[in-house]
């Protein structure tokens, strides 16, 4: 037998019909607490970080599942963008990009935003 399931070896707390004591009730509450956090954080990220879904789906194989996921994620990201829910992510990203480009000389041809990191004209 792969896992030992002999009831003789189990603690009383392993039986489903045992009344949970205070410690177990606290553990159940903590599990609910953790699940709520994970659920809310997942929903929060799904609406504010839809761009990550798009970039992940673009790495999937171009089979039916991958194409479907790409279409769905792009549609979802578009909807979130229309609601401006991607605003915070984009602003943080732009700030970081500006910080990363601080001392670099501007390259007007390749820079998507020439004004972002341009030093004073000589």
């Amino acid at each position, binding site marked *: *037998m*792969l*896992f*030992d*399931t002999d009831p003789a*070896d189990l*603690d009383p*707390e*392993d*039986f*489903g019909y045992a009344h949970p004591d205070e*410690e*177990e009730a*606290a*553990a159940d509450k*903590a*599990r609910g*607490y*953790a*699940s*709520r*956090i*994970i*659920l*809310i*954080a*997942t929903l*929060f*990220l799904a609406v*504010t*970080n839809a761009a*990550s*879904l798009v*970039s*992940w789906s673009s790495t999937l194989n171009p089979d039916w599942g991958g194409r479907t996921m790409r279409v769905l994620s792009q549609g979802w990201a578009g909807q979130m963008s229309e609601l401006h829910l991607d605003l*915070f*992510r*984009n602003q*943080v*990203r732009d700030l*970081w990009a500006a*910080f*990363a480009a*601080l*001392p*670099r000389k501007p390259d007007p041809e390749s820079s998507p935003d020439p004004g972002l990191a341009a030093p004073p004209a000589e």
Partner: protein
Amino acid sequence: MLFPTMQFGLFFLVVYAVTWGFGRDNVARKWFLLLASWVFYAAWDWHFVFLLIGSGVMNWWVADRINRTESDGRRKALVALGVTINLLVLGVFKYYGFFVEQLGTLLDSFGWGRDLPLLEIILPVGISFFTFQGISYLVDVYRGKTPVARSLGDVLLLMSFFPHLVAGPIVRASHLLPQFERTPKLSREIVCHGLVLIAWGLAKKTIFASELATRIVDPVFFDPASFGVVDLAMAAYAYAVQIYCDFSAYSDIAIGVAALLGYRFPRNFDQPYRATSLQDFWRRWHMSLSQWLRDYLYIPLGGGRGGLWRSCRNLLITMLLGGLWHGAAWTFVAWGALHGVVLVIERLWRAARPNAAWPAWVGLIVTFHVVLLGWILFRAEDFTAASTFLVSLATHWTAPTLVTPMILSLVVVGLALHALPPRAGEGVAQLLSKLPSPATALLFGAAVLIIEAIRPEGVAPFIYFRF
């Protein structure tokens, strides 16, 4: 399947929901976790799942035989057999090519060059970790430090459990098997600590380690002769931050993920660059490996018994083999030798001057720069690259080309993390645990959102994956 990816995020959500859905059915939970761990491992190469299973079955069988055998000689023979098989598996997959190459070079130097059977052997991810885990289980059962596992499934799960599977921490059987035997439980503090570790690990890996790797470390170590003193020095400091952030991030996420599933892993890093001696460094860096090397190599070699010189010899052998464990290359052996020699010097110094004490800040600076020198050997492709790096670092005075305010900030902040209070993460977790779940969720979500916004596209594998 890398931790800081959407793929792993989705995988974890499913594992979390199903695992806790089993309620108090611990047997079904363990079955499911075992299958999930194999799916996780198969994402790299499904063939090696059979190696993992084979290794687990072998270790379970040998431990079971050891437990049933009365005769000391037979028990010793069994543990030797088990350890040898584990080392053979590791040797074939990790060191075969290296040793055949060295043999070929040796034969060539005598003019006896032959075509040796070089094989293209793929290194299974995490083999060094699960092999060490198997060895520690066998030796602990032999020594009577841990009871034999109740079932084969427990041993398979001990070796395969996905949070620690590919890059540790190396969790001892005596620590994890008792946890598998009871229904896991959560507390608010543990949940919050797990979340803090996950967010912090994501930040260290995807911001500090990734940015420093792509912007300065990789280009400089690829061609050190093309860079001047400032770029080279900054690349060395940046690599010190990168490897710490990379590896400790993996450990943090592993500990955090396991915590959310109700399992406790030991701490693996404790602000290593705060160390005031190399001995202190090894009590803070990759603690599960240094404790493993101490218990299963240094002490069996004789440890501190037999006098000062014998303990120095044992220390040197342990560090040389510890270096070789990191990779099949002479640069890793040299890295281990450097650490071994400095540890020996420290030991001799303490023996000669038991009452002499350096100011802590002197010890910290000297230790950090010894470690830094070691990292140059560790990161360089070969000795030629390492020596080019070191020679250029002393002689090549040209203007810096890669040092930017961002790189400087990441290095400074990465090092300054070591000045935080030692248990800052636990402190933040305590504060979070007082908040209602929606507030904690939004704070965690916002932290991940900021990390996601900042991180570069794509993520390189963790450095320790190849070990």
